[in-house]
């Protein structure tokens, strides 16, 4: 009885306020923007960095600080998942789904493809859409497929978590080192020290490629660690 009553109390207020909120946004929204935005500055930025993908040039060079913070946010999330989903409630072993030849076959076929896609997205992030985050996440999700087909334990044996953990933090330190090295050399912090190279080549775009690879590896490991913990605590809700 309290259940339905409280919902009935909330309902009019909710509809009224949310409707008014949407209406306020919709009515006061002014589409008459400033006219043509200044795109040329970003094209110049991309030329300076030597990257063809303008978004990468902004993301990993002009606004690198945002990206560093974002990598930290992701690491904090991985660490939080690991810290709060610890040994308690963990299943002894997690069985793979039986009678899944189709699944197994598809995972055998799909896994290399997905991993390849992840690597491609990461490495070519400065030349085409993609980048470390999407590449790492795609490859990490591919491992989930393998974990479902082969059983999480057999995948986990191949990716030792204690080693992964160190690699993860080492990569993060590398990222900070790379970002801070310019400050140590007396330049403005977060300045890209590598030359832009010839746009269009794989080895171009200054440090963007390096950042993409480091972030890709970090996100790949982080994704797997997270998924592994969720598998071990499956069905808790």
């Amino acid at each position, binding site marked *: 009885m309290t259940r339905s009553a409280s919902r009935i109390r909330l309902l009019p207020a909710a509809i009224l306020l949310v409707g008014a909120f949407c209406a306020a946004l919709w009515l006061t929204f002014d589409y008459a923007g400033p006219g043509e935005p200044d795109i040329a500055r970003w094209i110049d930025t991309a030329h300076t960095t030597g990257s063809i993908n303008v978004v990468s040039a902004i993301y990993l060079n002009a606004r690198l600080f945002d990206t560093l913070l974002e990598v930290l946010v992701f690491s904090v999330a991985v660490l939080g998942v690991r810290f709060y989903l610890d040994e308690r409630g963990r299943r002894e072993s997690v069985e793979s789904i039986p009678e899944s030849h189709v699944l197994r076959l598809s995972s055998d076929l799909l896994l290399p493809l997905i991993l390849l896609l992840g690597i491609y997205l990461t490495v070519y992030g400065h030349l085409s*859409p993609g*980048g470390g985050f999407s590449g790492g996440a795609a490859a990490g999700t591919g491992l989930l497929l393998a974990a479902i087909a082969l059983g999480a334990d057999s995948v986990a044996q191949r990716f030792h978590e204690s080693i992964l953990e160190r690699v993860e933090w080492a990569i993060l330190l590398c990222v900070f080192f790379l970002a801070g090295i310019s400050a140590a050399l007396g330049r403005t912090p977060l300045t890209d020290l590598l030359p832009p190279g010839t746009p269009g080549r794989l080895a171009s775009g200054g440090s963007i490629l390096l950042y993409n690879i480091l972030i890709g590896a970090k996100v790949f490991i982080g994704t797997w660690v997270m998924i592994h913990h969720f598998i071990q605590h499956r*069905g808790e809700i």
Partner: protein
Amino acid sequence: MIGLTILLVLLPVLAAAALTQRRRSSAIIAMGLFSFTLAGTYFLLQAPDVAITESAIGAALVTSIYVLAIRKTGRITVVASEAPGLLQREADRITGLEWEILERVARTAGLDLSLNFAPNEDVIDAVRRGDADVAAGGVLSADCGDGILGTGPHLPTARYAVRGPRWAGPSDPRAGPLRGYFSDIVETVRSRGPLCVVLDLARFLALSRYDLSAYDVEQLEGSHGYTFGVSAAREDLHRHFAEELARMRESGELDRMIARYFP
């Protein structure tokens, strides 16, 4: 352009569908579909980077961790409403007669148990929808049927109507079963609020520890028994229940257990 419009119309539809689903798993799947549609929209809005990131992280990764968190293979999911003596939470433990039986069944079946408390009127519904395998916590044999297999009464019970002061609602409590949580009713009785409800024996015993002098109490006719309601899709589980209950009855263990909880 037309493709974009179609996707843009599809987005709110999918979102509304996701958030109005009764079943959690359908809500999560619908949300995954929404995210993929969103990725397609980004692609058509000249944002390929965003589209790729959204489909890899927003759609694939988020959906998979949510699915993993609610995945139910290899476990019996029980939905119950609290019933003192039968099934209740004490600090961080679950106790009660039905819980012990459930633990035994799970052990013989080699499955893990997971329990979710729900308001009383939702319990049977959740099993019927397929959100849970077993309904417990004061389910009466009369509640079963239509997609729910009863396991046969393991404890006889009676029904009591409790009608309180200043009750302004319909006067016949037999109109509906207990709604909401039992703790709400305890709260109402403690504050001597208006009340009109039908309770089974276990809950009535727990309630009569409080002062019921302000309320009319009437024992209703008919004989009833507690049972578990197993989803009709889980006949294997139903068999396990029947075998385990028969074994416990034979060895007299069931009676000893009952005596422990209801002296």
